[in-house]
């Protein structure tokens, strides 16, 4: 940050004048450039003259032009520009300018060599014809830049000992899409850096000559031979590895698990995600997350997921920085993320970076692509239940790109054609989602990102009660690079989540029960890398919440429903953080961070007071206090510590440790007995303390077979404080004082996760097994009751055994078979055991809390994927995916519930995918 160049303004200040009265060759131009890339200069010249430049961007990407010129010809300009460099140029008669290095292109037959005014040649250069050069290039067309020596920085300065920093973007050469998580590494220096979410990297290295290796999942490994004079920029293009049969999906991930500092982090590209068979053949981010070790869900087709014994509300789900409260569509059958607008995911389970906060268990970061910056393209998919369409392309080439996607379902007609006897002919279900993302590059140092997201769901299951929910998100991000060592990202946005239940069939009791969450946020993140040993990140963020925890309204004039609205809640969560990733040596690195978070519960709100020393019940409310708008009702604050360390035992094995403390100021309460979820979100207030978590974890990572097989074992132990559980008989919906129906528990969770992964070769995939337990304890008699005699009891999402197998077998380039096997212990349930009569009243006698379990979950899916032919130049690529979901037809329980029928209490098990389900999906990419 000490070196704030005024570079941002250069685009505005650079001037370029042409005096047009003279002929083309002698056309005079004027201008001024300050550290401009060559492309900028070339563009300006092209814009005002008839010349066209032909050059290899990877060769000129280290060039920075600082010069002022007045009324000179293009030839003079180029002479001045390339003097004392190994760049050469040639201009032919149609006005094409060829820029090359080390050799000069001959634009005429050798007999015209006499016209030496056009061609600068040096003795060591052997001029060749442009056509010859082209054929030469073709023979090694895939890696044109690999064998070049790239000069970085200002050669004119005397080479001095010391270090320089190079930085730039790693991008897909075809689409211009930045590549996240690409590894740049210099073996001789044991240096490794990763590109960030924007594909940006910064690498500090000794001046001089190096070989930089770049690897990334799904991309061909590449290398750059560089010579570094001073700080400079180096953008790197990578090529997609199209044929992944023999060569590798790899490299980044195969190395990452032993080399990266991150612990308990899973990074998956959309390519990997798309290989996992899922129901209805649609690649699904959430379903794939559920196959990772340590991640479970409460039940099939349920919303959300549980990470390492955490509850579903303890996951921060970010979609391009926007918080998504409900990541599922259609009762959880689909995830809210259209796979064609997802670039990849990162899931942090244990070492949660200090820039994230507000949730205890995990951070799921779903990233969106920037959109193809080079040409317009799109994908379309047709499946049995959904269709989707995505288009992407440059609004302005290499400057502004756009990606937009829509997805919708047409399941209504499917439900409608069912015979009445199925009992589902009255059901309706539909959803849609839409994404938009615009990336605008002002100049190499300033990029603006705009995103918008909209999702909507509506369903009713054979009755007239209609459930609706939807996410609406928008944000704007500005990335500014100060210099090679530091950059910032400033984000501002709004998130909205709403859900409702309504029934207007019977006019007399037509109702609508509605909830919503609104948040407005601002984040600023700064990264400073003074050298490769340290990456310092710091920042500030703030979220303003407004929750409407429930309103019950009549629909229509004749409805007798009495309006009942739980007052809105407001809160402000703000945090500052500072962290440092310190590479002590090539085998030992530490990351330490601190986050200080403050939560203010804000008015207007009425807060109830309770008699001290008595359980919080409606009868012990002593008073209530009204706080006006904007008043600070209650403030909670706490430091959060994020520590992790890696020690490499060898090239193929490492040991990692992490310790985290976290705070969460928002709580989700769920009415789990009924089959229709009506979740209540609640902010911490004077009566409900923030949830706190501490996690210790230790992992051992070992790769085999030249890093093509990776294995890991991670153990963790977690402690939770103030986790909310429900009092017996708790009434959650439309409760104006929910503190009377909940109590805080102490929790502990522990587990061990095994992962065996092979991502290369004909047979690839992974096997994971997780043993995890979560227990809660409520032994405070002041809560009005103790649960299970004050002993630890399993949390409602405690599922000890989870095993997943994902396997892909490629028969050929076009045919592959995928198999997915899932097993998990059934979740705990509190069962009613008997009916009693006491004091004239009839009630249900329940077991101890969470004493029993619903049946275990088991499912196998198979799919066959057929790709169209692999000709790269083909206008459109299509693929088929066909398969069977739940091959064994097991009736896994989605929900278990009890209802009163003719005086008896009847139990029901609801399974959604009760038999095997075949599916076919067709995808087209153009």
């Amino acid at each position: 940050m000490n070196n704030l160049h005024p570079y941002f303004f250069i685009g505005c200040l650079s001037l370029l004048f042409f005096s047009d009265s003279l002929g083309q060759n002698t056309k005079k131009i004027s201008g001024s450039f300050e550290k401009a890339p060559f492309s900028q200069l070339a563009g300006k010249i092209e814009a005002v003259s008839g010349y066209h430049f032909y050059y290899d961007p990877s060769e000129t990407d280290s060039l920075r032009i600082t010069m002022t010129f007045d009324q000179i010809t293009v030839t003079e300009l180029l002479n001045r520009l390339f003097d004392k460099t190994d760049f050469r140029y040639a201009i032919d008669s149609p006005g094409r300018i060829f820029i090359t290095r080390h050799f000069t292109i001959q634009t005429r037959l050798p007999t015209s060599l006499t016209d030496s005014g056009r061609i600068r040649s040096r003795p060591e250069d052997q001029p060749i014809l442009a056509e010859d050069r082209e054929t030469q290039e073709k023979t090694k067309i895939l890696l044109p830049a690999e064998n070049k020596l790239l000069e970085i920085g200002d050669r004119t300065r005397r080479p001095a000992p010391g270090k320089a920093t190079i930085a730039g973007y790693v991008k897909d050469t075809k689409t211009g899409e930045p590549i996240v998580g690409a590894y740049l590494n210099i073996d001789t220096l044991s240096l490794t850096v990763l590109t960030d979410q924007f594909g940006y990297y910064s690498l500090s290295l000794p001046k001089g000559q190096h070989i930089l290796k770049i690897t990334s999942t799904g991309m061909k490994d590449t290398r750059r031979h560089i010579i570094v004079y001073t700080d400079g920029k180096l953008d790197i293009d990578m090529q997609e590895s199209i044929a992944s049969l023999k060569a590798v999906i790899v490299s980044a991930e195969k190395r990452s698990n032993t080399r990266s500092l991150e612990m308990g982090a899973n990074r998956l590209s959309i390519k990997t995600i798309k290989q996992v068979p899922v129901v209805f053949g649609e690649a699904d981010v959430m379903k794939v997350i559920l196959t990772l070790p340590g991640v479970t869900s409460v039940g099939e087709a349920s919303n959300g997921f549980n990470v390492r014994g955490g509850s579903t509300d303890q996951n921060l789900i970010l979609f391009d920085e926007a918080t998504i409260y409900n990541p599922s569509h259609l009762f959880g059958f689909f995830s809210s993320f259209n796979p064609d607008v997802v670039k990849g995911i990162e899931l942090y389970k244990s070492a949660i970076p200090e820039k994230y906060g507000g949730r205890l268990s995990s951070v799921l970061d779903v990233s969106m692509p920037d959109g193809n910056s080079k040409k317009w393209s799109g994908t379309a998919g047709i499946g049995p239940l959904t269709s989707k369409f995505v288009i992407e392309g440059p609004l302005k080439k290499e400057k502004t790109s756009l990606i937009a996607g829509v997805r919708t379902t047409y399941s209504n007609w499917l439900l409608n054609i069912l015979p009445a006897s199925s009992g589902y002919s009255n059901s309706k279900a539909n959803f849609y989602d839409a994404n938009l993302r615009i990336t605008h590059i002002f100049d190499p140092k300033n990029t603006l990102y705009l995103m918008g997201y909209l999702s909507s769901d509506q369903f009713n299951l054979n009755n007239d009660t209609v459930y609706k929910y939807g996410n609406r998100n928008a944000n704007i991000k500005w990335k500014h690079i100060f210099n090679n060592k530091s950059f910032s990202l400033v984000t501002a946005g709004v998130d909205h989540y709403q859900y409702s239940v309504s029934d207007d069939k019977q006019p007399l009791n037509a109702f609508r029960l509605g909830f919503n969450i609104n948040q407005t946020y601002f984040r600023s993140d700064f990264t400073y890398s003074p050298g490769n040993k340290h990456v310092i990140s710091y920042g500030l963020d703030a979220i303003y919440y407004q929750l409407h925890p429930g309103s019950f309204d009549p629909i229509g004039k004749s409805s007798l429903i009495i309006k009942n609205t739980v007052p809105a809640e407001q809160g402000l969560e703000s945090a500052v953080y500072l962290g440092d990733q310190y590479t002590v040596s090539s085998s030992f690195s530490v990351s330490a961070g601190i986050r200080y978070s403050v939560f203010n519960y804000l008015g207007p709100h009425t807060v109830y007071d309770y008699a001290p020393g008595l359980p919080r019940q409606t009868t012990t409310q002593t008073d209530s206090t009204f706080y006006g708008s904007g008043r600070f009702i209650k403030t909670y604050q706490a430091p959060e510590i994020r520590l992790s360390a890696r020690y490499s035992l060898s090239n193929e094995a490492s040991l990692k440790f992490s310790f985290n403390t976290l705070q969460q100021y928002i709580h989700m309460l769920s009415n789990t007995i009924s089959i229709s979820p009506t979740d209540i979100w609640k902010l911490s207030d004077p009566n409900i303390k923030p949830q706190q978590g501490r996690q210790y974890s230790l992992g051992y990572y070992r790769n085999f077979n030249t890093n093509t097989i990776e294995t890991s074992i991670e153990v963790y132990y977690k402690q939770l404080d103030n986790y909310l559980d429900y009092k017996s008989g708790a009434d959650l919906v439309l409760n104006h004082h929910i503190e009377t129906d909940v109590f805080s528990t102490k929790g502990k969770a522990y587990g061990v996760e095994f992962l065996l992964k092979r991502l290369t070769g004909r047979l690839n995939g992974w096997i994971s097994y997780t043993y995890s337990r979560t227990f809660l304890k409520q032994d405070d008699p002041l809560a009005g009751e103790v649960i299970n005699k004050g002993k630890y009891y399993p949390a409602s999402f405690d599922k000890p055994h989870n095993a997943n197998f994902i396997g892909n077998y490629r028969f050929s380039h076009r045919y592959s078979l995928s198999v997915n096997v899932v097993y998990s212990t059934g979740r705990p349930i509190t069962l009613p055991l008997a009916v009693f009569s006491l004091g004239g009243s009839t009630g249900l006698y329940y077991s101890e809390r969470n004493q029993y379990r619903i049946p275990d979950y088991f499912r196998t899916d198979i799919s066959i994927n057929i790709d169209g032919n692999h000709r790269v130049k083909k206008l459109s690529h299509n693929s088929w995916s066909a398969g069977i979901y739940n091959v064994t037809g097991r009736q896994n329980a989605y929900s278990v519930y009890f209802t009163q029928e003719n005086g008896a209490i009847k139990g029901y098990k609801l399974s959604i995918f009760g038999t095997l389900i075949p599916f076919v999906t067709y995808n087209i990419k153009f």
Partner: protein
Amino acid sequence: MSATSKKYWLVLLAIGYLSDCRKPYNPPVITTPNNYLVVDGVINTGTETITSINVNRTRNLGDTVIGGIPELNAQVAIVTGNGATYPLTDTAGKGIYTSIPLTLDINQQYGITIKTSDGRKYASDLVTPKQTPPIDSLYIQQPYDLTFYVNTHDPAGNTRYYRWDYIETWEHDAQLQTGWTVVNHLIVPMDSTTQTFQCWSTVNSSTILLANTAILAQDIVNAFPIETIPNGDDRVNNKYSLLVREYALTADAYNYWLLIQKTSQKLGTLFDLQPSQLVGNIHPLSNPNEPVIGFMSASSIRQKRIFLYQTNLTNWQHNTNVYQCDTLGIPVDRTDYRIYTYPDTLFAPYYFISGGPLILATRRCVDCLLFGGTNIKPSYWK
């Protein structure tokens, strides 16, 4: 893909997706007989009072019987902290075990022991008796519907936790009065035990009524609503009586009853409550894991009765002549006017016309017992 193959997979999909979604869920733990002991009652520490404990068993979820299954032939006794025992006996064979009139020393602690006929033993914790303060008043208010309220207070401030139950009794008369009834096909005059003109129905409360004054400076319960009768309800067509009983509770007992109050709500709605876990103070001695339902308290019981006539009420929707009463005449048997052989049981004798036919009336118009209750006038009925 051709249109026909498209149809094929969609149909398959429909079958898979939506058939057999809902299956009965009956894990063994629910279907095995879950007949847990339920102990319902209060050790009455009033002067010369009877303690009555209802011992029964829970029924399974799928059972449709109403009420508990009576536990017969058990040995039930009140035990005191100093070792004395007072046996309770089930005189009616309905699982209701009662004591002789007792005056228990309120300075002792009391509990209950049960030995069932299969030899299993149960005992409650010993509890300290609480003195129930008298009900200060039981009164009604009727803006439109009718509500009964109680006021009570404990000047010593020791009670704090209260429970009430009530017994309501109402008189429902037949629309027509007859002096005749039929016994063994003979028409005989009615007496006070066979009359069918005046009936009285008695129903116990079916909700748990609780209040506490824990946060109040003074131990005063003011205007606690006991029962609300909707306007026009025919329980108050004639004369109505409500007997309210008040029990003092310990805080533990109060919290137990609070859970009972919550667990007796409806299932399967959007507004479902979380399951309640009941941990009472009655323990199995034979098998420590066997659940026992109930919380044994010891207290005096205070009660108050109120009588009400519809004329006490304002703007009450009185439902008169609800039934159409048909009459018909049949010839009297010539040999013996008392012989009654009319086959249609929907009719009953109404009156004789001298020298003429016997007039019958629709049975429901002359027999109030068809609507339940008893034809024996309760002793307290004024």
